[in-house]
């Protein structure tokens, strides 16, 4: 036996200690003895608990889907951008909606002044969907709707449009973000009280499980929680708690776990330490599989899959030296691919300022394409599997995420923690500490507190606001409202109200209403009449 002890820690090697953002200390050197969980030696990709990926051949079979977030101004302009992205090799669409649509207000509502078509496309009626998706084949391009508070209505529009086109909805694919619980933590487009909001999400899960089995009605978002100040452990833990809340809701309606769990998907954030993110995904994927199998008793392996979109986060990008964001995003894309993502999207380098221009959207696309076609990233599954450091950190993340989930349970569960503002309060404090770390230089940020230079006052092109498109949208809404069958509209709204009062699933009456061009604002208003609105706990 050797008498010489291996020197691996910072202390032993007499170098500075290093900590991840999650607070975990990392050693300068890792060896086989640091990898406590040895099951990984025999684990294959595509096999439970899926540490190494959910499919056996992963990108060798098909590379990750490229799905940039896009949408602005009118449905007409959005349709043009969609065709531009598809022509340039994008394989899925990720639709951005304007704030009035997200908050359930029509374009002619006084509160929507100046917001129509600004941060995404305006949608008032099914007519807008017909225009936006004109010429887009739902068989070839999967559509993801980034909508939350009013998601049930926009999902209904998607179904209504597919039916109108003669599509068999049994085979209809697509995704909606539809994660309202994270909206209370970050992003803020909530409408109804927390419990009623969760009910609506469960309505969509129930309806899809029965009628549209290939549609993914919810994409649970750790992304925005992390952007709001959560560390990588909390990002995964809170997302899992949220996914469990929706799962519990679906089970309470008598749906079998294996009839919907495989349609739940996730949306995660990437910025910061490369290995920390990779371990977060690998450890998180293993933990989620165990939760679904061991806690919920799923029998189908697919139910245990952590399917995800993992993209470059805006939180890592800077206003200073914006071209550096192109480089950052390329690293984020690499992290995402090394972590076995299903779908990727990158924030464009100018997003700290403006809606991406066509040029910057193209750079993001090319970044991901270079990774797929030039870097050999698709050749081998889980290329970091077996690395002492990555495996040790993966194990640590699995444990730490589980611990954080327990903490939320001690707070009375995620729904309670969100309704009372408990989580919002702690992440906002962390956001402050991180920001102060950057501003004081304790957290290094190139171009911001290191290697700074005098900034060009107008370094990027701005995407201009299209007032004319907004005016046209309002005109069109008025025209549609004037030409509808008024009696029928009132009947359809009364039906939604009655079902809301009776606690029934609201998908069927909403699908019927959108088909008759009842507006988003009209539907949300009758739901507000029954459910009330969220009373935001004020604190910081």
């Amino acid at each position, binding site marked *: 036996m050797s008498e010489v002890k291996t020197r691996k820690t910072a202390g032993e090697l007499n170098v500075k200690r290093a900590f991840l953002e999650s607070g975990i200390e990392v050693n300068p050197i890792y060896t086989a003895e640091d990898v406590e969980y040895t099951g990984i030696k025999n684990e294959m990709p595509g096999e439970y608990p899926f540490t190494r990926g959910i499919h056996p051949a992963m990108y060798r079979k098909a590379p990750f889907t490229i799905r940039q977030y896009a949408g602005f101004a009118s449905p007409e302009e959005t349709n043009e951008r969609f065709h531009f992205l598809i022509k340039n090799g994008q394989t899925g669409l990720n639709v951005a909606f304007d704030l009035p649509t997200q908050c359930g207000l029509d374009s002619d509502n006084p509160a929507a002044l*100046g*917001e129509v078509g600004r941060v995404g496309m305006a949608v008032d009626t099914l007519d807008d969907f017909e225009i936006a998706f004109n010429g887009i084949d739902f068989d070839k391009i999967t559509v993801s709707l980034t909508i939350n508070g009013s998601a049930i209505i926009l999902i209904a529009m998607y179904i209504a449009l597919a039916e109108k086109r003669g599509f068999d909805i049994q085979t209809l694919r697509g995704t909606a973000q539809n994660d309202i619980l994270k909206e209370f933590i970050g992003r803020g487009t909530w409408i109804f009280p927390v419990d009623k909001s969760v009910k609506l999400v469960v309505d969509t899960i129930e309806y899809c499980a029965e009628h549209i089995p290939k549609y993914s009605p919810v994409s649970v978002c750790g992304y925005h929680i992390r952007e709001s100040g959560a560390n990588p452990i909390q990002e995964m833990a809170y997302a899992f708690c949220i996914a469990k809340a929706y799962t519990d809701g679906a089970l309470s309606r008598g749906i079998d776990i294996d009839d919907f769990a495989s349609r739940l998907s996730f949306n995660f954030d990437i910025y910061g330490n490369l290995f920390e993110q990779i371990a977060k995904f690998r450890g998180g994927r293993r933990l989620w599989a165990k939760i679904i199998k061991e806690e919920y008793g799923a029998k189908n392996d697919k139910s245990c899959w952590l399917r995800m979109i993992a993209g470059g986060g805006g939180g890592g990008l800077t206003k200073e030296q914006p071209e550096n964001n192109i480089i950052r995003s390329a690293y984020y894309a690499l992290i995402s691919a090394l972590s076995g993502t299903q779908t990727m999207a990158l924030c464009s380098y100018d997003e700290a300022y403006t809606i991406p221009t066509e040029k910057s959207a193209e750079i993001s696309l090319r970044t991901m394409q270079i990774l797929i076609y030039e870097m050999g990233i698709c050749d081998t599954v889980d290329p970091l599997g077996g690395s002492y450091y990555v495996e040790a950190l993966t194990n640590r993340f699995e444990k730490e995420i589980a611990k954080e989930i327990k903490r939320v349970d001690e707070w009375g569960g995620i729904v309670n923690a969100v309704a009372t503002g408990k989580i919002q309060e702690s992440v906002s404090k962390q956001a402050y500490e991180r920001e102060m770390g950057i501003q004081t230089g304790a957290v290094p940020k190139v171009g911001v507190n290191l290697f700074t230079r005098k900034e060009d006052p107008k370094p990027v092109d701005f995407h201009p606001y299209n007032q004319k498109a907004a005016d046209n949208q309002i005109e069109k809404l008025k025209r549609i409202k004037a030409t509808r069958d008024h009696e029928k509209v009132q009947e359809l709204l009364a039906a939604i109200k009655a079902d809301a009062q009776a606690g029934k699933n609201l998908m069927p009456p909403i699908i019927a209403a959108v088909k008759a061009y009842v507006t988003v604002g009209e539907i949300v208003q009758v739901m507000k009449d029954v459910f009330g609105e969220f009373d935001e706990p004020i604190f910081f």
Partner: protein
Amino acid sequence: MKILLSKPGLDGHDVGVKVLAHGLKAAGFEVVYTGLRKSIETIVDMAVEHKVDAIGLSILSGTHLVLAARMNELMTERNLHIPWFVGGNIPTFDVPKLEAMGASKAFPTGSKVQDVVEYFEELNAKA
């Protein structure tokens, strides 16, 4: 000195405004926060009710010129002289426009908490 921090319009991004709230509080200021999605009318009502010395509008959606115009209108209508400032995702070329609309200051993306604190310390010294 008491400062009202507000979120006018529909924008739900509140990380920045809360970071600033923490920073101002740490620097010894009293802070009142409105919460999300408040109309300019509600914000001005709250400012009067809480007798604040300044009003901050946090806007990241790009609607700052529309909302600042309404703010200017209402402050004139009610003959109020509380200094108000704008922060958020504001292109530098809009800063002079906001100041021409009556904003006493605009803090574009990339501003430091310390910049805002120093601005208020100056205001406070003048008062």
